[in-house]
Every structure is written in structure tokens, then in C-alpha cells.
């Protein structure tokens, strides 16, 4: 256990939060793979707190005289940490069913202890990374516990909690995670309700804990809960430092989630703004993050600016290329059936990321491109200018060419008119339909806004 105390001392001497946080990491550092084992085996349940207290005091005397509350606090924290390590080791070594729930419960204790000491004011703000560490792993353990519970065949029974109403409860397959969400919420409240002056305030932990909450709620598939977090942060604006003052990693994550939330609510303009700025700020080598951002940014720009991602961009991220290229190509060439096929192929992936419904609207662009081709392909009139009156039949023929099988043959002119009407309504085509003549009259200048024709 010496290693624990030595690290602790170093961290305190340098006043380094991250170093301090590393002391309670549940993952062994690469330069000392046996760390957890060593710490655990060095003591036992009956004497852990005494050992820790002794160890801390001993090493403390060598450097600075710590006031007692600190020793007590850290004794509790390290005792809880020790217990948690025990569970982690047991789970890691278990061959049959690792009991992640126990790990979670033990880690939750640790988290609660830490929260307790923050609210009592003993732990200072510079130690915030400790809170981050606790929260981050709490979430991870909760997810593992839920997965283990699901794998071991939790029964799909009703939640018969309320005897009066016949309410079907939500299957408790995410119980642990919900519990974790509550703990993380407390961490967030801890940060936001700190009244200390800015240099020593816990407010600096706000965005990190908010991001943790976002991640948890997304995993729980209830993005609506995130609104509360955003509102809370919006309300406390006055005495909070600006977003730009926070560490970059916090900002990028925050903007990403805000962007995705806006996307889900169909506020595409706002989503574009957030996601674009997240994209620009993101570190070049954080490919996974960039991929995530782009997954949402591409459909957004598709809708707002009718912008297609360039092949160069997609080439940078092969996974994205796989996902989007067939669609993008189909849209560019106006091939409706290819578009439909590509959308159906990738449906599972798209639905998982919740971008399916948005990408569907790409069909409008596809159709517009097709009709534009018809316009361009039409013969010139006497003055060498393009015809602005196009028969509905011609459009229909083009569409039918692309459609395969039954759908194409059954396509009535009425439906073609309907499609064109939609184009006009959505401002993808400028003009009008004259039913009497069976013609589409296009505007002389800029019949296809945004495409330079």
C-alpha cells in the first residue's frame, strides 16, 4: 500500500488534481500492472481504516503537517476504495459470472463518500478530478452490471409495484444505470451550488459532470432528461465562467451533445451550429470523436444547406464512407431507386443512430436532381434558351426509368404531379403546375435554387 500513500503525497505536494485522481483509479496504470493487487493484499477488512490512517499520517509527517479532517477524509475514501478494489479483483478473476453489481455497489459507496466530503467542504476544488474519476467509472460499472444482469436472463416480468393502477413498468434492465444517474446528478448539483469564489470554486466541474449526465441519459435512451441539465446551466449563467474558459475537452463534448439533442428535436439550424463548432474545436487525432460528430453533422447539413460531404472528407474516415457513400452518390446522380436501396441497406445502422428519419428527406434532393437533369436534357427552343415548360409526362418518364419493377409501372401522373408540387412547396423548384395543360412551368431565372440554374 506504500505506493498509494506515496502517490498521494506527491499529488498533494504538487497540488495536482489529476495525479490525485489517479490514486483512486480502478484500472492499473501501464507502468505498474499489479497495482490493484498490491494494494488489496496489503491489508484486510478489519484493519483497513487503521492501516490507511497510519500510512497517511506517517507519510504526512515527513512533509507537511496535515490537519486532521484531511486525514480522516482520505482514510474513509481510501478504505472505500480498498473495498471496491476487492470486488473488482474478484470480478476480474471470476470465471463464471463476474459480479459487477457488487463492484458497482462498492464503487457507489466510494462515490458517495467523496460527495459527502465535498459537501462538507473538506475537499478542496483543486481535487475535482477525483470526482470526475469516481463519476466516470461509476457509469462504466453500472453499464457492466446491467449487461451482466441482462445476460444472466433477467425475467421480463411486470413491475407490479403499484397495485392500484395497471401500469406496465419499464423493464428494469437499466436499473443500475438509473441509480448511477442519480448519483451523477448529485455530483452535478454539488458543482453548481458551490458559492465559493471562482478560483476555489467547484463550478469548474460543471461541464464535465453535465457531460457525464448526458452520456448516461443517452445510454438510458431518454434524451428528454438532458433538457433539465441544459436548463440548469442556462439559469446559473450569471456567476459562471464562460463556456470558452473551460478546458477544451469539456467544451467539445458539451457542444456535441447539445448538437445531437437539437438534431433529435429537429432544430437543424441550431444543431448545425453546435456540431460545426464542435467539429472545428475537436482535436485532429481524436478520430472516434470526429466520426461521431460527423455522423450527425452530415445529415444536418444535408437538410439545412443541401450540402453533400465531399469524397475527400469521407475518405478520411472509412467507416463513415461505408455508411454514407452509397447514399451520397445516389443523391448526386438523382437515381431514386439506388437511393432507396442504399437507404434500406443501411437502415439498421441509421436507425440505431437515429439519423434514418433525417436521411429519408434526402430523397427530396435526389428527386430534385433528377428533375433538374430532365430540364437540362430538354431540347433548346428557337432562341437557344432552355425550355421553361416541361410536360409532366417527361418528368414521369424520368422517374419511371429509375424505379424498378411494380412501383414504376403504377406511377400515375397524378403522383408525379404530387411530387413536383412538393418540390415547389419546399422551394427546391421554382415554378408552378398548370393542370389544364399538363405542364410544369418553371421560372426563367433560377428554376432550381441553389444549383446555379
Amino acid at each position, binding site marked *: 500500500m506504500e505506493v498509494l500513500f506515496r502517490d498521494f503525497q506527491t499529488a498533494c505536494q504538487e497540488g495536482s488534481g489529476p495525479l490525485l485522481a489517479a490514486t483512486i483509479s480502478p484500472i492499473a496504470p501501464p507502468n505498474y500492472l499489479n497495482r490493484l493487487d498490491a494494494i488489496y493484499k496489503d491489508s484486510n477488512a478489519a484493519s483497513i481504516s487503521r492501516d490507511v490512517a497510519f500510512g497517511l499520517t506517517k507519510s504526512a509527517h515527513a512533509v507537511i503537517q496535515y490537519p486532521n479532517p484531511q486525514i480522516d477524509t482520505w482514510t474513509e475514501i481510501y478504505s472505500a476504495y480498498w473495498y471496491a478494489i476487492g470486488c473488482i479483483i474478484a470480478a476480474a478473476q471470476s470465471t463464471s459470472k463476474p459480479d459487477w453489481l457488487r463492484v458497482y455497489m462498492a464503487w457507489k459507496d466510494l462515490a458517495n463518500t467523496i460527495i459527502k466530503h465535498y459537501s462538507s467542504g473538506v475537499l478542496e476544488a483543486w481535487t475535482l478530478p477525483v470526482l470526475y474519476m469516481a463519476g466516470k467509472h461509476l457509469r462504466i460499472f453500472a453499464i457492466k452490471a446491467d449487461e451482466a444482469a441482462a445476460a444472466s436472463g433477467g*425475467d421480463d416480468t*411486470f413491475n407490479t409495484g403499484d397495485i*392500484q393502477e395497471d401500469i*406496465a*413498468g419499464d423493464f428494469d434492465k437499466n436499473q443500475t444505470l438509473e441509480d448511477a444517474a442519480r448519483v451523477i446528478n448529485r455530483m452535478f448539483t454539488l458543482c453548481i451550488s458551490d458559492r465559493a469564489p471562482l478560483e476555489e470554486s467547484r463550478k469548474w466541474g460543471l461541464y464535465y459532470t453535465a457531460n457525464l449526465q448526458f452520456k448516461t441519459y443517452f445510454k438510458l435512451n431518454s434524451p*428528454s432528461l438532458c433538457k433539465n441539465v441544459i436548463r440548469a446551466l442556462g439559469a446559473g449563467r450569471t456567476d459562471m465562467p464562460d463556456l470558452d474558459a473551460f478546458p477544451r475537452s469539456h467544451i467539445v463534448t458539451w457542444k456535441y451533445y447539445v448538437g445531437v439533442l437539437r438534431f*433529435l428535436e429537429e432544430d437543424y439550424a441550431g444543431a448545425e451550429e453546435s456540431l460545426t463548432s464542435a467539429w472545428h474545436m475537436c482535436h485532429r487525432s481524436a478520430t472516434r470523436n470526429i466520426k461521431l460528430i460527423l455522423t450527425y453533422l452530415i445529415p444536418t447539413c444535408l437538410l439545412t444547406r443541401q450540402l453533400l460531404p465531399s469524397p475527400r472528407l469521407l475518405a478520411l474516415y472509412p467507416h463513415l464512407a461505408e455508411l454514407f457513400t452509397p447514399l451520397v452518390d445516389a443523391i448526386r446522380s438523382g437515381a431514386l431507386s439506388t437511393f432507396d436501396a442504399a437507404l434500406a441497406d443501411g437502415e439498421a445502422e441509421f436507425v440505431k443512430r437515429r439519423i434514418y428519419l433525417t436521411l429519408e428527406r434526402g430523397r427530396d434532393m435526389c428527386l430534385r436532381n433528377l428533375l433538374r437533369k430532365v430540364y437540362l436534357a430538354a431540347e433548346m427552343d428557337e432562341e437557344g434558351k432552355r425550355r421553361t415548360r416541361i410536360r409532366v409526362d417527361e418528368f414521369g418518364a424520368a422517374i419511371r426509368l429509375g424505379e424498378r419493377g411494380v412501383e414504376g409501372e403504377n406511377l400515375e401522373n397524378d403522383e408525379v404531379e404530387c*411530387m413536383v408540387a412538393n418540390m415547389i412547396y419546399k422551394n427546391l423548384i421554382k415554378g408552378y403546375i398548370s*393542370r389544364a395543360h399538363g405542364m410544369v412551368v418553371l421560372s426563367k431565372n433560377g428554376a432550381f435554387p441553389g444549383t446555379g440554374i
Partner: protein
Amino acid sequence: MKCAFTSVVARRNFGQNHVSATPPPSTPPAAQQASSPSAAAAKAKRDWPESVRLYVQRAFASENNIPGMNREEMETKLKQVISDSAESNTLLTVDWANKPLPQHMILAERHQTIYFNQNPPWGNGVAPLSIHDTNTRRTDSPSKKRKSSDLESSQNGHQKVPPWRLANNRNLFEDRITQSDKRQRNDFGGKSSSKSHQAKNKKRFEDGQAGYVSPKEPFTPSQLSTPPQEMDQGPVIGRCQDLEKKYFRLTSAPNPDTVRPLPVLERTLDLLKRKWKKENNYSYICDQFKSLRQDLTVQHIKTEFTVNVYEIHARIALEKGDLGEYNQCQTQLRALHLQHLGGHPEEFKAYRILYFIHTCNRTDMNNALADLTPEEKKVPAIKHALETRSALALGNYHRFAQLYLSTPNMGAYLMDMFVGRERLAALSNMCLSYKPAIKLRFFTEELGFESDDESARFICDHGGQAFLEDREGEVVILTGKAGRFFEATRQAAFQKVDIKGQI
């Protein structure tokens, strides 16, 4: 010889935190369950006599574990027993060595409860769930309940019957409970003469609930998975034989005299089906169905019959456009269908999709789409719903009207909910794209109206009568003039999606 473990003492509270200033969770190497030591961690603020401690140890010992007994239940009971004894200062007088263990007590109570729910030793007004509290013969703890053990003497012979046999012979028992018996018990109940005294007793029973494990909880998770076909799981087994029953929201534990058992409920369903066909009285039917559902819930009956009931109610609600009630049934049905109890899961999946279209609920729609398997997507009803969704997403009102006129099952009722606003959208669309005018006939056919009159009325309802003109014997819509007229109403229509409240 001193044993090599920390002695286990009964704790005063069941706090969750292992970490405290006192010795943290210690794991005695003796064969104790892992969780018990933390629970029984020595928050020894009182000196418990040795006999009590031994009793507690016995309770936690693994060999005394009853399979299917929830640990927490046992602990709660243990705490209750000991604190009762402590409060009445009988810690030293009670014979702990021979006292039945908490788990045995709970088991006995359960047997009692099932039995007594059918034969309450007093009148019908009192919540029978609290009966086991009066079972003073089982527990020595000086409970705050009145001693009605004298009333039980007449039923001595039946007490050994295990619960499953009770259930199967349920009807037999009901036969045995003759009217005279009930009257006799009523008299006994009248012993505590005045109404206020009875009311006070009732209150004490209900308060006494808090100390015990609520019998509302099903026995254990492992038992929940057994199909509840033969046996009513849960504490309430109904006795009421009436077929019809008004719906009342439950505010306390249900009275088995008002709860109908399964055979009665089946007959009720038949009766209701006939009545609905004959009379078509929705408020009555809805009320009856709600009480039917309630009876199923309190008796924890989750079978194909339950699915059937919910499906029928859902369909009736749809027919009458009662979306609130329909939504309730839909939610329950989703859970029931996932248990593969039968019924028509695909039909209702299609309804769900249509419902989400109506409520513009993107999140749930996404989820519903994610849940569909490729086979399900080929089912005609679901295929129809999916095509409707995509037609509407792209604004293809032409296709939408075709789908609307060919809706399978009862989906048309759901489509009716939002066909109005989609037609409005289409109208607005057309006004912007068609110039100078379109024939009313065209409008009628495109949007699937039944007649020109209907479509004309639709336009007028939205304030567009000015745009209808008679030209050469035909009515036209002056789209050129209309322009963006309908745009505002269209926006408004999509803003508020009204889920009507229940009737």
C-alpha cells in the same frame, strides 16, 4: 472456545452505507452469506442478550435459508420481531432458542393470508390483508393488534392446507363459506361494538402493515417466472361472483369480496362483448372494462386472457376515438406481447406506428422502428403503417390518400385522427404549386374524400370559401388567389397534438 468471527448483533437500522467510522463491513470467515455481515455490522449501541444474538445467527445461517425466501423480507421480519420484543421489554423472557425463525414466520403468515383472505374472521368492511397481523398464535411478539385469536378457533382444522391446494379447490372453499358463516362472523365483528372502535381497529391494521413485509409483493423473483395459470399469484384472490362491477380507483388494499376470480371474469368478458354489440354504450363499456382490468391486475393474472381483454378494450377505444384509454391499453399490451402470451402483436405494432405518427413522437417512433424485425416488416398491417409513415414524411399526399383508403384492421380509426391535418398540409401544398386553379373534383380524388361535398366542406371549415368558384358548371379552387392562405392553419394544426383525456 471463542469463535473466530465477530459476533452478529441485530441492528437497529438497515442503512446502506458500509463505510462508517465504526469497523467497516467485515466478512466473518464462518459460513455466513456475504451480505449479512454488512447488514448486521456491529452498530452495537445496545447490549443484546446472548440468546437474542444466537437467534439472529440462526436466522442468518445458510442451512435455515428457505429457497425462494427473499432475504430482505426475512431481515425486515427479524427486525420487527426483535424491536417489538425490545420495546415491550421481553427480551429476556422470550424463549429465543425455541422461537420460530423469521423465515418460518413469514411462510406461515403467507399460508394464513391466503386462507384468511377467503374467510375473514370478521365482517367484510375491514381490509383483509391485515389479517395475518392478528395471527398471534404464530408470533410471540406482543403486536399492537387486537387478539382475535379466539375467532380463529373455529377454523383450526383448515390451517394446514398449503396455498396451492387452496387455489385449486378455491371453488370448494367458496361453497363452504355459506351465508350463515358470514353472518356469524359479522356478529363477532360487532363485538367491538361501536363503529368508531371498528374504524380505529381498521386503522391499526393498516398501520401495522408498515412493520411487516407487504404481502402485495410477489413471493420472489424466481416464482414470478412460473406461469400463473393454475394459481393466482399475489395475495388477493377474489370471491365476488357478480358479473358486472363499476370501476372505482383503489385507494387501499383491495377487498377480495369485491374482486372477481378468473372464471367469473371470463364470463364477464362474454357478457360485455354481447352488450357492446347490442347496446353500443361506450361509457358503460369503458367503465366495465376498466374494472375488469383492475381485477386482473390485483390478482396478478397475466395470461392470454389478459391479453385478450386489453386487446378488445383497445379496439373498442379506437372505434370511439378515445385515445387516452387506447394509449393506456397500448402501453400494457406492449409489455404483455413481449411476454409472448399470444394475442395479435403485429396488429398492435402497426397501430403503435400510426399512433406515433399522430403524436409526432419522433423518439418513440425511432424506438419502434428499431424494434421491428425484417419478418415483421413484411406483415401487411405493419407494412402499411410503415408506408404511411414514409409517405407522410416526404409529403406524398397522393400515396397517403391511397393508403388511407386501404387501411387494414382498425387502423383507419387512428388514421382518422391525423388525416385532417395531413389534408390541410396537402391543400396548402397545392395552393402554392398549382396555378391558377384546380378542379374540386381533382382535389376530392387526390385526397381521398368521399364526395365533392365533403371536400368543399373541408375547405370551408378552414376558412377558404372565398376560393371556391363555379366555372362552367364545375367548382374550382382558386389556388392562385389562395397562395399562402392555408399555411398558417397548417402550422397550427401540427403544433398541438391533442391526446384526448379519458372519458
